[in-house]
Every structure is written in C-alpha cells, then in structure tokens.
C-alpha cells in the first residue's frame, strides 16, 4: 500500500525531534508500565473480544472520507498501534512511536462513533487515548498540542492568558454590551451567586464578542451569575487529549474548587464540547469522583431552559437557511440532540436537519485534540473529513450552527477547504440577534 500522504510530507518537531531523545529501554519500560499497570480490565476485554470483523470501519468519518482506505478503520488504528505494542511487548523503536503518535493524535478524534457500530460496543476511543498516554509519557506529542498542555500547566488555561488580560477582557466586553443594554453587568467574584459561568480560553483570547453576548443573555434572562477573576475560569482541557492526565486533573480540580469557593449552585458553560467532557466525565474520574460535585449545564441545555421557560422570548427569528452540527461530546456525550433542535427551531425560521444526525452525526475532525495539533496537520484533517463536506452540502443551508468551539473551527475549515460557501455560527450569536430585549432594558 502506498504511504499515507502525511507520512511523507508533514513536519512536526513535537514528533520528529522528540523521538530522537528516546532510548529503547525507556520506550519498553513506559509501554509496559502503561499497558500492565495503568490499564486493566477494559484494555484486556476489548483486545480479547474484538473478532476483527471490521464493522467499525463504516462508522469512521476518516475511513469514509479516505475512500475506505483500510488503514483508517478504527480497528486498523488499534492494530497499527496497540496490537504491535502487545505483540512486541513494548520492544519498539522511535520511528514506531512517531507513527503511533501520528495515528492517535491526528487520525482519530476520539468521538466514539465507532463504539455505536461495533457489535460488542468496544471503546476504541479509550484504546486510542491509551496510545496517546504512552506517547505523552515519552514526550512525543504534536508540538502545538503540547503547547496548549504546557499553557494549562503554567496558567491553568489553554492560551497563556494572564490574569490581568482576563479581567481586562471581561470588563471590556461588559462595556461593549452596555451599549445595547446599559444595565448589563458581568459580576466578578460574586460569592453565593446561583450560576458560575465558565468558558474556554479562546473566548477571551480571540472570540471576546461571545463574552459580550452572554452578558446580554444573562441580563435579559435575569440570571444571578458570576465569573471568577482568578485562574480556574477556563473549563477547556487539552491535557485530557494530549495524554497528560496529571495536568488534566489539576486543571479540573481548580475549576471545581473555584466554583466551590464562589459557593455557586451550578456551573453554566459556554458552547464547547470537550470542555464539558473534561469537566463532567474525564476530570472527575481521574480525581476519583463518581460525578461532578455540582451540576454543570452545557450552553445547549441552558439556552433550552431559557427558551422553554419563557425567560427569553424571541422577537424575530433568524432568517437565513441554517443546519446544525451535533457535537460529539454534547450529543453522543450528553444526549442533547433534541434540546439543540428545540433551540434551533425556536430561534431560526428556516432549518434543514443533517443526515445522519443526533448520536450518529459525524465528527467535525477538529475535536479530540486534532485541531490543536496545529497547521502541520490541517490538510490531513481536511482529507479525513470529506464526508462532512458532503453532508453539509446536501442540506442546502447557508449557515451551520455549531454549539462547540472545536466544531465551529473544524467545520469552518471544511467549508473553506471544500469551498462550500457556508458560514458557521454559535447559538449565542443567533440568540442575541433574535431575542426580545424588554423595553425597560433598552438604552
């Protein structure tokens, strides 16, 4: 079989340079430690139960987009990584680790669609994360992704945002939103508020207008809310995807501690998928909790509650033709497909659904840490998601509503690469346009 294009022409020092520092002994010890001590029942049962039937292949957007190249089937990704490690008892070389890292970090988004197609429900996403764990412990991680993990370790947020920059940005957006609603406030450090709102670092860094949006939404809905001024405001968690579970745990712990410090009743978070997964599932599990200490409500569910209860009314529906993306971590990962469509139908006049949809919708190929692997891997991601372009085109819509930052960026990339002429929008962008602002709140 010809080499995959990525094997020939992608340069990533996070992989290329890191493997040069590895010794055979180090590799063998690390692999065996992870497989024999960190892994246990799940690892063994999944490997023993897989009958090599290949039914998982048709689940995977990468397999379908790459014209059914056998090497992109989920089981093939496990074969090319884990089966080799087990067969050779960890006696593999740096070149193999690099290949493993490429497969695990850039060819799989850990979206879990394959587990719905496997007759046994094997958790292939878990197996891929085991591979990432090994790569992380060996220091072989795509450079850009490792940078976000480093940022988490140093600043507790994904994008090296300093505390003064954070506060400044919030106060700037509060100012901006007051042009629309003079009494809109963004209460910082309000102890005993009902809701703590948390966001991912890209919001203050490059999408600050979303913070302005939430100011308006909270004011109209009359929510008693706050945001922390300290570190622990970022609910994103790239360490979860780079395999650095120790940093993942620290970040999540601080996030929950911050909510506890502010004595809030629940956390409402912005439109991000992996952040929800990290905060509500992966983080707590690493920390030894069965579930999160207080409820965490994803933006989709929050907006649904506001609209269904009438706390926010719609003045004029968004007029453009829209479709919707089902982010894996909020639909497969939280069953919010119906509530999402309720929100879309309440705020948009002309909605065409995607097919397949709900839990069976395809991954955006940006989540799972893949887009965070940065520019070297963008083309690879695009080649792995032609199926998403085909799916989008069939809807005939002009706007894709993407209630997840990764989906938002990933689908924007797909739209650009495949020249679909569409645009992506967050729910909040549509909601602030469509919602009714009571007369007494207007300037």
């Amino acid at each position, binding site marked *: 079989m010809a080499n995959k294009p990525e094997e020939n022409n992608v340069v990533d020092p996070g992989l290329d340079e890191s493997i040069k520092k590895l010794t055979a002994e180090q590799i063998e010890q690390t692999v065996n430690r992870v497989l024999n001590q960190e*892994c*246990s*029942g*799940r*690892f*063994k*049962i*999944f490997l*023993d*139960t*897989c*009958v*090599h*039937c*290949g*039914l998982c*292949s*048709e*689940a995977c957007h990468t*397999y379908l987009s790459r014209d*059914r190249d*056998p*090497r992109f*089937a989920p*089981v*093939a990704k496990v*074969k090319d990584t884990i089966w080799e490690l087990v067969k050779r008892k960890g006696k593999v070389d740096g070149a193999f680790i690099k290949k493993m890292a490429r497969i695990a970090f850039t060819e799989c988004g850990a979206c879990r669609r394959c*587990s*719905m*197609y496997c*007759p*046994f*429900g*094997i*958790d292939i996403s878990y197996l891929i994360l085991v591979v990432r764990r090994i790569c992380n412990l060996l220091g072989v991680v795509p450079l850009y992704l490792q940078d976000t993990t480093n940022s988490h370790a140093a600043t507790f947020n994904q994008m090296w945002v300093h505390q003064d920059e954070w506060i400044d940005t919030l106060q700037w957006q509060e100012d901006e939103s007051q042009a629309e609603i003079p009494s809109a406030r963004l209460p910082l450090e309000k102890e005993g508020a009902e809701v703590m709102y948390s966001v991912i670092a890209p919001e203050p860094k490059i999408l600050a207008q979303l913070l302005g949006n939430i100011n308006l939404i909270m004011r109209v809905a009359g929510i008693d809310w706050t945001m922390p001024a300290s570190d622990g405001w970022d609910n994103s968690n790239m360490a979860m995807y780079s395999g650095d579970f120790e940093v993942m745990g620290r970040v999540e712990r601080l996030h929950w501690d911050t909510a506890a410090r502010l004595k809030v009743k629940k956390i409402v978070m912005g439109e991000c998928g992996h952040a929800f997964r990290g905060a509500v*599932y992966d983080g707590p*599990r690493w920390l*030894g909790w*069965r579930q999160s200490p207080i409820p965490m409500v994803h933006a989709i569910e929050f907006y649904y509650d506001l609209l269904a209860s009438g706390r926010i009314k719609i003045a004029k529906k968004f007029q453009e033709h829209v479709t919707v993306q089902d982010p894996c971590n909020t*639909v*497969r*990962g*939280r*069953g*919010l*497909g119906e509530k999402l469509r309720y929100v879309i139908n309440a705020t948009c006049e002309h909605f065409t659904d995607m097919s*397949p949809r709900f*839990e*069976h919708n395809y991954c955006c190929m940006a989540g799972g840490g893949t887009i965070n692997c940065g520019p070297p891997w963008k083309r690879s991601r695009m080649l792995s998601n032609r199926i998403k372009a085909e799916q989008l085109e069939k809807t005939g819509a002009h706007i894709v509503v993407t209630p997840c930052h990764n989906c938002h960026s990933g689908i924007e990339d797909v739209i650009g690469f495949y020249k679909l002429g569409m645009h992506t929008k967050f729910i909040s962008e549509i909601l602030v346009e469509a919602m009714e602002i009571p007369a007494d709140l207007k300037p």
Partner: protein
Amino acid sequence: MYEFARGPLIWIAFIVFICGSIYQVRKIALMAKKDKVVYPYLDLRSSVRSIVHWLMPYSTVNMRLRPAFSLLSGLFHICLLITPIFLTGHIISWEESWGISWWRLPESVTNVMTILVLLIGAFFFLRRIADPTVRYVTAASDFVVLAVVLSPFFTGLLAYYQVFNYETMITLHIWTGALWLMAIPFSRLKHMLFFPMTRAYMGSEFGFRGSKDW
C-alpha cells in the same frame, strides 16, 4: 479412539469449557474492578437496553445499514448455538449416557441449519480474503478459529449422511466438537462470554450520558 472420544473426552471438553469460561469471566470481572471507572457506572437498565437492541434483528443503525450481512451473521450464530442443543443425534447420546432427553428439532431442519452454518462460514472466510478492510486486520488465527468452529458441523454432516466410514467420521466429529468447546474460553471465541459484559459497559457509558449506543 471412538471409546475415548465418546466418554472421557466429552467429560474433559465440558469441564475445560465450563471451568475455563468461569475462570475468564471472573478474571475479567476482577480486572475491571482495578479499572475503577467500570463498576460505578454500570447500570442495569442501560445494560439490558443495549444488549437487547444488539440481539434483536435490525434494531441498531449498523444492522440497518448492512441488512444482508446482519441477516447472515444472525442466522449463523443462531444456527451455531441452537443446532448442537436440539439435534436429534445429540439428544440420543445424552439419553444413552444420562437417561435425560428434551425436545428435539426435526432432522430435516437441523440439516438445513448445519448447511447454513457451513455456507455462511464459507462466506466469512471469503470476506476475510476479499474485503480489503477486513483483510488488513485479519491474522492467521482468525482463519484457525473459523476452521475450529466449522469442523464439528462439517464432520457432523458427513457423519449424518454416512459419507466415508461412519465411525471415523463420528470420532472426528467428537474430537472437533471437543476442540471447539475447549477453544471457547481460550481463543477469540470468548467473545461469546464477553459480549454481555462489553455491551453492558458501553450501554452504561452512553446511558449515563443520556444517549443511545445503537
């Protein structure tokens, strides 16, 4: 050969099968405890929902996407498991050894079921060679396992139709059948034992998240 096969070997086969299966299931169940995130989330309702959907024809999206394959696989497994239990020849053997008997399927039916197992088995074999995706992840052991599973049916059919020497054929049949039973806990055939466990896990994982894994 025949005497050994008809007596002690069947004892050995069943003991190895039953004890081996208990051993494997128990071992995995204990290992899952060490995996701390399995038991706290296992939920009976989600597990049963998942298992039932994946056993009922065409109730999962994957089955509907591949109706022909699902039909063949379903038929294969049903015939595989039902035939040995309700085969007249087997029931007679149980009666001779232990004086117990139960309802039997007519031989015309079990003949058809046996032939189905062999034909669909042949299809599985061809699939492993012809489909590039399956071929990529196929190893020699996959062919060996298939051969182990099909041999008792093949030799049983030949014995029934008295092709070649009957006593040779029936001895071969018992040996291959014993081999099949003993292979279940110690080869990939243990997917039979682990199916409800992995299904319960994934069903619970999705159920805990308020979504469906079929």
